[in-house]
Structure formats: C-alpha cells, structure tokens
C-alpha cells in the first residue's frame, strides 16, 4: 500500500522550530476557522475533511513523543511523496487501549503510530463505548415526498440502508434511524443515524411550508377578461379558472395540491399571477390595443393634452 507523506508543519502553518506554545496557538486559530460545526450545511463536508487533517497534525506535533518520532524522519520529505515507514513503526505504544480507534486517521499516521494511537486510543482500560452516531444528507424530490415510500441510500461507511420517507418531512427536517450508526466498541450499543433532509429544488415550484407556489403567466386580456388555463400540479395538469379582473401578483389557490402533511392532509398550491406584456405585438394585437387605448378614460398619469 503506497502511503503518502504528510507535512504536519505545513498543515499547521508553523516552522519546524516552533515551540509547543506556538503550535498550540496556530492550531487553535485553525480550529476556529475550519471547525465543521461552525459552517453552514453546504460547507460542512469540505470543512470536516480539512479539520481532520488539522487535528491529525496537531495530534502529532502537540505530543512530545510523537513529534520526536516524526522529526526523526528528517527534513527532506515533502507532502505527497511515497513514504515507507522505518522498521518498528506502526505498533500501538504499550499501554494504549486494545481496541481500534473509531476516529479515522490517515494511512500515513497509522504507518507511524498505529491506528489505535489517536485521541481516544489512550488510557489502557478496556472500555465499552456506544458506536458513533452518523450524520448524512438525504435529498428528496417533491415527487418522492408526495409518493412517500422507501428510499435506498448509500452511507459514508459503504453499507446501504432503506429509509422510509415520512410524508410530513420538510427541508432541514432531521430523521433518526436508531441503531443504524457505527457499531459499538467492545459490545457497546450501535450509534444512531441522523438524516438531514434536503428538498431538491424544483424547476416549477417553490416550497413555502406545506404550500407550493408557482408563477402563472397571463396575457393582459386574460387577466382582464378572465380565462381558463392549464396548470401543472404534482398530481398532473388541472384547469384553473382565472376570474375576470385579476391583477398581477394575485394568488390563486388550488386547495390540497401542495405537500403532504403528517396527518394525511395536503397543503395548497398557490398560482401567483404575473401579467406579461407582448414585447412584439402582431399588427392585429396592436390594433386591438389601440382600440383599447381609445376606449379607456384618461388614466391618472396620462397627460391631458392627448
């Protein structure tokens, strides 16, 4: 297995001559900047990767024994070089716990210090620990939400599970699947799986609570005279009656065509009227609008000289 060298000094951003105090200060500053729990959802995964690197570097440089061992490798190594550990490396130090650390470390770290040498690996007592909880994102389309049912999903650990999509979930709902997290340590109970639900954006609808909104474009005459228009709902096309004299911005409600609620009811679909103006009217249209102009009493903002 090819292991790549990691330059821990580079990761922390300190010279090789840095004092313990300097390393601590630099690490704290980086942790404040990259801690995944400080980030909004979209940036969390990337920050988690970076933070893991920073922690690993700190784990080595802040521990005098590990730093000595690391420094003994010499100065000629560069990040990413193929690395073969010196003989005798990789064994967990005597007295360290006899279970594998749950927190994962890089292969480079493991080749030097063993896998059990991470933060939780010290102590020397045989402990029973509940497995770590796992957090994952589940992106659900509006259609899937409506149909409900089961969804297969692949977890970061590799195994696949089936999750039931309850009808009432919304963007940022959290689902808990008890016992679906990582396995426990020494017979401890498994952790839980927390699924953060994301609603996939829909090209036509916007989600507002239980309701959906969609833009309904109307020609001026449809808005004035009223009309029957086709509207696509999640359940298929329906005919919507536009009442005469419908202003732009009016919300026309289609009852029960929104998102499913936990109690089996449905929210509403709001068609929001947008009156659109023909940019290039045909001759016939132009004449019709001219006639409309003559028939309309002077509007308040029109010069009276006309």
């Amino acid at each position, binding site marked *: 297995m090819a292991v790549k060298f990691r330059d821990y000094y580079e990761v922390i951003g300190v010279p090789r001559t840095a004092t313990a105090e300097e390393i601590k200060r630099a690490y704290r500053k980086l942790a404040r900047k990259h801690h995944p*729990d*400080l980030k909004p959802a979209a940036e969390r995964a990337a920050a988690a990767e970076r933070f893991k690197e920073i922690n690993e570097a700190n784990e080595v440089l802040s521990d005098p024994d590990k730093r000595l061992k690391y420094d003994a490798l010499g100065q000629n190594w560069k990040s990413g070089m193929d690395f073969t550990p010196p003989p005798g490396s990789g064994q967990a130090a005597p007295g360290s716990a006899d279970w594998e650390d749950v927190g994962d470390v890089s292969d480079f770290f493991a080749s030097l210090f063993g896998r059990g040498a991470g933060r939780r690996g010290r102590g020397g007592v045989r402990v029973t620990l509940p497995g770590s909880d796992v957090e994952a994102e589940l992106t659900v389309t509006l259609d899937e939400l409506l149909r409900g049912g089961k969804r297969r999903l692949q977890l970061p650990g590799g195994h696949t599970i089936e999750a039931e999509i309850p009808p009432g979930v919304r963007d940022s709902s959290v689902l808990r699947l008890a016992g679906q997290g990582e396995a426990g340590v020494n017979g401890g109970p498994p952790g839980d799986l927390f699924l953060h639900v994301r609603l996939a954006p829909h090209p036509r609808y916007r989600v507002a609570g239980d309701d959906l909104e969609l833009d309904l474009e109307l020609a001026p005459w449809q808005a004035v005279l009223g009309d029957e228009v086709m509207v696509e709902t999640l359940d298929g096309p329906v005919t919507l009656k536009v009442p005469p004299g419908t202003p732009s911005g009016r919300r026309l409600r289609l009852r029960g065509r929104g998102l499913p609620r936990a109690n089996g009811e449905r929210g509403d679909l709001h068609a929001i009227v947008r009156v659109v103006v023909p940019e290039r009217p045909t001759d016939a249209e132009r004449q019709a609008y001219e006639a409309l102009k003559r028939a309309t009493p002077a509007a308040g903002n029109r010069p009276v000289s006309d």
Partner: protein
Amino acid sequence: MDIVMTLHELSTAVGLSPARLARLVRLGLIESSGPEPYAFTAATAVRLRRMLRLRRDLHVNFHGAAIIMDLVERLDGLERELARRGPEPPSTPNLEVTEIWIRTD
C-alpha cells in the same frame, strides 16, 4: 415534522446523563416540548452533539456553544431561503426612459 425522542434516548444518543440534560433544559440551552416528561426532536440531538464537539475542540462553554449554534442555524436558514428563491429571474435590461418635465408654476 419531527421525530420525538425521550430523555433516555437523547441521553444515549449524545452520551450525557439524564440529570445533566435536565440541567441544560433548565438553563434554556436545549429545548424540550415541556418541563416533564421531556420530549426532544432528533434535531435537538444533532444540535447537542455539535455543541459538545464545539466544547471539546474549541474550548467554549455550553452557553458559548449554544450561541454559536443559534448563529449557524440562522446562517443555514438564510442559505436555504436563498436556495428556495432559486436563481434570480432573468433581469430585464434597463430601458432608457425619456422624461418630459412639466412646469407646474
């Protein structure tokens, strides 16, 4: 819609004793649907786990961690709102408008 957890379930999910959890509720750092019996949402479990990590990694206390979580949740809400609004509608080019000034005196 949220999944409801008991005090005991939350206790195993985050690794804090029921007594400590009850104290955090009294301090208003996590929310329960009522004083007792407690009922927590899965979102609370996630929030609490994040607070514990912040405490461990950044050496902030529970109050500081709760403030951070409030701010991050606000940030999350804003980003979701932005995503909900979708891409800006194609902007109509600004039209040159000819103004005619009318003397009113």
